[in-house]
Structures are given as C-alpha cells and as structure tokens.
C-alpha cells in the first residue's frame, strides 16, 4: 500500500482506544464507528484497518457481510420495515409504500436531501405487535396508517428520536401464559448460592439429573455440553449466551432479556461454575440493540452484588464476568460456530466441525454456547433440583417451553407450556379459529396442516425453538413459503455452493411461479434443489432452507398448481416485464408500450 492513511478523527480514535485496538473487536468497532456518520466511508475502513494492524480487505470483508453495516450513505432517518410473513399479513407493504410516498423517496434509496431512507429487513422479533419497524436501530411496533402519518411528519420536521412520543418505543412483553420459569420470582444470586453450595461436581450432577436439553433448536443435552467443556484441555474457558434470535417468528428471548435478564445472566454464571469458565459473552442481535442499556445496568448491579467479577459469592477462584457483543443483521450468526466467528470480529461463516466449540470455541478456547431460554431454565434446576425438573414435561423433553405465538389469533404473545402440549390446545388458548396451518419452529421449522393438530410440542414429536405462526383459511400457503425462501436467500452466508446458489435459484423458481410463469418442470426442479440443499449444505441454514417448500408442496400442493400455466416448460424471462424500466423512464403505460408475450394474451 502506498501513502499511509491520515490519522483517524477524534471520535474514531476514541472508539479504537476503548476497544484497546483489539482486532477481535473489529465488528464492535465497525458498529460504533458507523454511528459517527451513519455509514462507513471507505477511508474510515482504511483507518480502522491500519489502527488494528489488519489488512484493509479483511475489514472490508467483515463490513460487507452484515446487513446493518453500510458502505454507502443512508438517510439520517434510516427506516427498516420488518418483513416477516406476519408483518406482511398485517399490511407492512402498504405502510411502507405510504411512508415512501409521503416522504418522496423510493424504497432502498436515499432521499435527495439525505434525510431518509426506507427499506425492509428480516424479522425484527415483534411479530406479536407488528407491523414493526426499526428506525435508527430503535424498534416501533403496532404500525398503522395513523402512526405512519405521524412518523412522516416527525421525520419531515427532523425531530430527534428522543423527542418522539415515548409510547412509540414501548415494547410489550405480552406474556399470556406462565408456567415454571415465568412464575419464578427469584432474588438475584439465590440459584447461584444453591449451586455453589453443592460444589462444581454436585451442581453438574444436578444438571445431569435434570435432563435439560437446549432450547435453541438442536436439543442437545446441556449437562453433556457443560461437562465436555469442563473436561476439555485448556484454560480461560468461555460461556456464550446465544441471543441472536433471528428465526422468523421467534421473540421469546427478547421477552426473557427484557423481564428476567437476571435469570439469564445467572444461568450464564451457573454454566461458568460448572464448566470452569472465566469469561462470558452475551451475543445480542443487532435488532435488539435497544435492550443494551438496561442489560448493562443489570450487569453492573450484579457486579456490585458480588455475583460477577472476582471471587463470586466469596468463592476463591470463581472469577467470571460477562461482556455484551452486538450482532449487525445476520441470521446465520445464530449458528453457534458462525456466532463464534462473529464474536472474534470476523465474517459470520460457520466453521468446519469437528472440532466442536466445547473443545475449540472462542479464540480456540473451550466454549459453551447456549440459548437464552436454556440458561434461564438452569436457575430452576439450581433452586429446585434436577429430579424435580426432570419430573415435568415428557419422557424425552423435560421442563417447559416458551412459545412465541403470532399470526392469525386473538391473543398473540408468549405462552409457557410444559412439553407435551398439543397444537390444538395451544390454538384454543390463543384464540385461533379456522386455522389452516401452523408454522412451528420458524422458517426453518415445520408446517403443520389441520390433520396434524393433535401432535405435541416435544423433541420426540414436534421440536421447536419457539416460533409458532398461525395461518387461517384466508391465507395462501404458497405466499408463506415464498416469503421464507426469500428470507433464506437473503440470509445465506454464501460460504458453500449449494446454499449460496441453491437458495437464490429456489427464490427464482418461487418468483417465477408467483409471476404466473410456472410449469410442471419447475416443480421437479424445485424438488431436486430441495434435496441438494438438504444433503449438501455446510450448515443448518442451507439444510433447513427448503423445509417450507417441502412441507407446503406436500400438504398444500394446490396452492402451487394453481399457479402453473399448463405447459411442461415455460421460460422465466418475460419480454414485456423487461420493458418496465423503459416505460418508467418515458412515463408511458399505453398499449403501444407493451409487448404481447403469450399467444393467449393476444387473442
């Protein structure tokens, strides 16, 4: 490289200094550096690279990976409409269009005065109070046309966000059904005291007896994970709480972090006690950045109370503290090895396994990665014992599960049930009627049709990380599947061929069908892509990406067949559509500006 970059300006210098010029803090530095101008100009990347001693290309590579990092200017008011299927069902597209019209800006563009940009983003975890948006990182739910009008006015007046009506930013917990966890009223430190009294071995034995399995999706036995990390060679072990919660339709971790953060942090400390870890990270998805101040406050309180830091609860050698790391808009970072890469300040690309995180995790150290809910549940086990916990739920699924319920029902929100509850019971409790289908476990999960509503939530029947989206008889299941396919294509990390190209191809096929150009041959190609994605993908994102299509093709095939033109093959290319841009430029839409592509059309 030729000339040295000029010294960073003072605000950037302060950020770099605060992070000790540590290259593994790169992502955190980029997130904070972006707050200076709202985006990351090229010279800033050069300066950050030089200050951290990293190749510039590596910094560019990280900045280019995350949806919430921008390499070109965005509006001073940056509006992102949540675009989960539940937001769509509540009319988010019409609201987006309305806001764009009122502010004279096109979607995905910046207004000419640089005031505002409006775009969509993957599910922001407010499905129970949608349609939702993020504005400069702060969440607003329950959008409607009135609110959109007001927001347009506030933006036009360039009113700072702190002066906007506070009720906009009020996020409800919507806890509708409480069971063991949500009923628990625990003094901070009580679970920890019980576990420390049992000794590390005794506490692990209690965990073993509890049969607790991970609530993040895979259902791995938590005690086995903790014991493996404990037995792994190496010092400076790590506990990571996975608060990436990117699965569309899931929001229970948001509620846990909002209302029982102490349980979550206490669970992390309990894991540290068992595994012998000395550092902890909460990996908080960028969409939940607004929770950070209150979470930092809880951490500070716990430090003062001797529940974090050196010699926790007076126990010599029990040293543990927790740092919050932010994500920046990447669903794949919920996958535990991608999460570790991201924690190290890299692109969120899933690692090759083995080795597994319990032996080689964060910076090569033995690392426990657990879901928010899993960790919170360990408090129950410390307080009431493993056997009591194991006695609830079903044979292979001990304890309770938090469900995030959204979609077509009277009372969306958080429901805590013992494992084994039937779909029908849940539907009844939340006031759903005329239910056509339920998507359990999010986009990556399973789509259940009415004939399956006697099935039960449990690892041995319908496993779930917690999403529960309801679709009534008026909904088109093809649209649901298409939305999820778009989600996966947008979120593919791009590392492996099948997922990078396969999700984009699948999106193309679903759009082709949607546009009325589908043929029987396409359904065969879709089948084949589904199989390849499932078999050959590097991580769970790619292998789950075809799930919504596989399920709906099997259970709601007419929704697809309705869209086929009855040909064996039909090109995806539409000559007339290709002229759309020319029509827009010339402001023409008369018959002469259209081509007739179908013989039928011509008749």
């Amino acid at each position, binding site marked *: *490289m*030729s000339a040295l*970059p000029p010294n960073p300006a003072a605000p950037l210098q302060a950020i770099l200094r605060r992070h000790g010029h540590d290259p593994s803090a790169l992502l955190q530095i980029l997130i904070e550096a972006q707050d200076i101008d709202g985006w990351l100009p*090229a*010279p800033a*990347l*050069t300066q950050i690279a030089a200050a951290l001693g990293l*190749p*510039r*290309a*590596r910094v*560019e*590579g990280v*900045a*280019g*990976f*995350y*949806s919430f990092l921008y390499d070109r200017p965005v509006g001073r008011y940056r509006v992102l409409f949540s675009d989960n299927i539940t937001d769509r069902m509540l009319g988010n597209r019409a609201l987006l269009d309305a806001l764009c019209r009122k502010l004279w800006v096109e979607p995905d563009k910046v207004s000419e005065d640089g005031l505002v940009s409006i775009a969509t983003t993957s599910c922001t975890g407010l499905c129970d109070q949608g349609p939702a948006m993020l504005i400069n990182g702060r969440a607003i739910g329950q959008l409607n046309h009135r609110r959109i009008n007001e927001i347009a006015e506030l933006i036009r007046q360039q009113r700072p966000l702190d002066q906007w009506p506070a009720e906009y930013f009020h996020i409800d917990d919507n806890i509708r059904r409480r069971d063991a966890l949500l009923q628990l009223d625990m003094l901070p430190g009580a679970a920890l005291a019980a576990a420390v009294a049992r000794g590390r071995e005794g506490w692990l034995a209690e965990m073993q007896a509890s049969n607790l399995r991970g609530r993040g999706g895979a259902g791995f036995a938590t005690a086995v994970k903790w014991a493996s990390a404990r037995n792994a060679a190496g010092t400076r072990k790590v506990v990571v709480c996975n608060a990436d919660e990117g699965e569309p339709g899931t929001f229970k971790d948001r509620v846990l972090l909002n209302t029982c953060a102490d349980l979550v942090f206490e669970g992390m400390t309990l894991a540290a006690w068992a595994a012998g870890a000395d550092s902890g990270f909460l990996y908080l998805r960028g969409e939940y950045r607004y929770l950070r101040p209150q979470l930092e406050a809880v951490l500070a309180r716990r430090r003062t109370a001797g529940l974090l830091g050196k010699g926790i609860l007076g126990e010599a050698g029990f040293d543990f503290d927790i740092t919050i790391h932010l994500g920046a808009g*990447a669903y794949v970072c919920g996958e535990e090895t991608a999460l570790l890469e991201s924690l190290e300040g890299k*692109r969120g690309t899933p690692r*090759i396994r*083995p080795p597994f995180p319990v032996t080689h995790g964060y910076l090569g150290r033995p690392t426990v990665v657990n879901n928010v809910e899993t960790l919170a549940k360990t408090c129950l086990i410390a307080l009431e014992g493993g056997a009591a916990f194991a006695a609830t739920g079903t044979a292979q699924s001990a304890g309770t599960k938090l469900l995030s319920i959204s979609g077509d029902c009277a009372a969306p929100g958080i429901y805590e049930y013992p494992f084994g509850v039937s779909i029908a019971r849940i539907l009844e409790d939340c006031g759903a009627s005329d239910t056509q289908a339920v998507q359990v476990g999010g986009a990556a999960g399973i789509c259940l049709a009415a004939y399956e509503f006697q099935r039960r939530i449990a690892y041995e029947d319908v496993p779930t990380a917690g999403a529960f989206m309801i679709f009534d008889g008026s909904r088109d299941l093809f649209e649901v599947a298409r939305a999820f396919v778009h989600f996966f*294509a*947008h*979120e*593919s*990390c*791009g*590392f*492996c*061929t*099948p997922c*990078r*190209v*396969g*999700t*984009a*191809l699948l999106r*193309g096929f679903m759009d082709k069908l949607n546009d009325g150009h589908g043929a029987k041959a396409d359904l065969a*190609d879709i089948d*084949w892509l589904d199989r*390849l994605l499932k*078999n*050959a*993908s*590097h991580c769970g994102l790619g292998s789950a990406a075809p799930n919504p299509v596989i399920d709906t093709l099997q259970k709601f095939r007419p929704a697809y067949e309705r869209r086929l033109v009855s040909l064996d093959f039909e090109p*995806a290319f539409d000559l007339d559509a290709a002229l759309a841009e020319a029509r827009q430029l010339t402001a023409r839409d008369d018959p002469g500006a259209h081509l007739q592509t179908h013989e039928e059309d011509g008749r």
Partner: protein
Amino acid sequence: MKQFLLDGQPVPFEDGQSILEAARQAGHYIPSLCWHKDFPAHGSCKLCIVKAAGRHVSACATPAKEGWEVESATPEMNGERRALLQMLFVEGNHFCPSCEKSGNCELQALGYEYEMLTSRFRHFYPDRPVDASHPDVLLDFNRCIFCELCVRASRDVDGKAVFALTGRGINKHLVVNAESGRLGDTDFSKDDLAARICPVGVILRKGPGFAVPIGERTYDGQSIREQKLKEEES
C-alpha cells in the same frame, strides 16, 4: 492399519487423515475444487461430497473413521456433483471458448468429468467488471468460484493478504487490499503463490496469452481424474 470402505474397496488411513486425502493416496479419485494439499481443508465447494455411514459429508473436511462405508462414485453422488457444477457455472459468467484458462481450468475439466451437458439452471449473469490495473496480472472476477485459494495463499504463504471476500450470499465477491479497489494499488506480484493458484480463469498473467495452444493443455489430453491421481504419485 485402520481402513474404511470406499465404494466397497478398502482404503487405509492414518489418524486425522481426511476421507479425501486417504482416498487419493490409495489411488481413488474424489473430486475437489477448493481443496489443496498444501492448505487446511476449506469445505466450501462441496464437490467432494460423499455419503459416509449414510450421512452426506465433505470428504476433504471429514476425518476418516475405521470401518466406515463411504459412497462416492455412485449415480446419486455424481448427480449431486453435476448439479453443484451447474450452480457454479450459472452463478458466474463462464464463456469457456474465449477464456485463457480453457483446458487448464478445473471447473471446466470437472464439467467434462461429470458429463455436464447443459447448465440446467437459469443464468445469473452477474455484473463483475474486470480489473486490469496491475502491470502483470489481470483479474476477471466473472469466473470466481470463491474457493479462497488466492485468499489463503496470499495471506498464509505470500504474507500479503491481497485478497478477501466481502458481501454475503449470492452477492459475495472478491475484493483486493486497496481503498481504490484496484489490484494495481496493492503489493501483489506476479511471483506470488496467489498469482498461480486459481483453479479457474480469474487470476491471469498478462502478456503470454495462449502460450500453450488449445488442444495441448493440461486437461485436453487427459481427464482431471487422471491428472489429479498422477499429481498424487509425484
């Protein structure tokens, strides 16, 4: 010595060896694109996909296990490989007849090996301008398959980190280590290992174009299978 079965044939291996390495050493070909014997496994292209004990795994990144039954040269696995190749072809812009790498290109050679007759899927036709700013080397990004061999060679052998990937998903792309984005503004040299390691036609020497005539190139006379197994012996 420990061994596993590859398509019914015993393959000996040492602890820690991958399925792919052990197979190649024993004279059995499993295809690869992102794997290179001098670097740790990357596991991205998935051409080496095999079925081990009934599960799909990347042969380059999976340590061999005693007694495993591994399926590789089956119609099922070869069909999946062909589809992966088709994906790589439609993702970029590959006009082999006008490509300087034609005949020496591993992607093209694998297309022949796995009897890829059509591209099957819709072409993406991405817009990826070439970079001719360097005096000795041309970058034609249209053909990149993201194996990261140049990234790894430049970083780990040349000590320069000239290349990196940015973007995500189908928008992932290669960038060079300069604020201008131009290779000419980096410390890249034609003598770097990274200048020689690209399996396809992205990183090309300027000047001696088509020095070896088409017809006499590496994979013109022999298949990539034969060539790779020969390299293994030497």
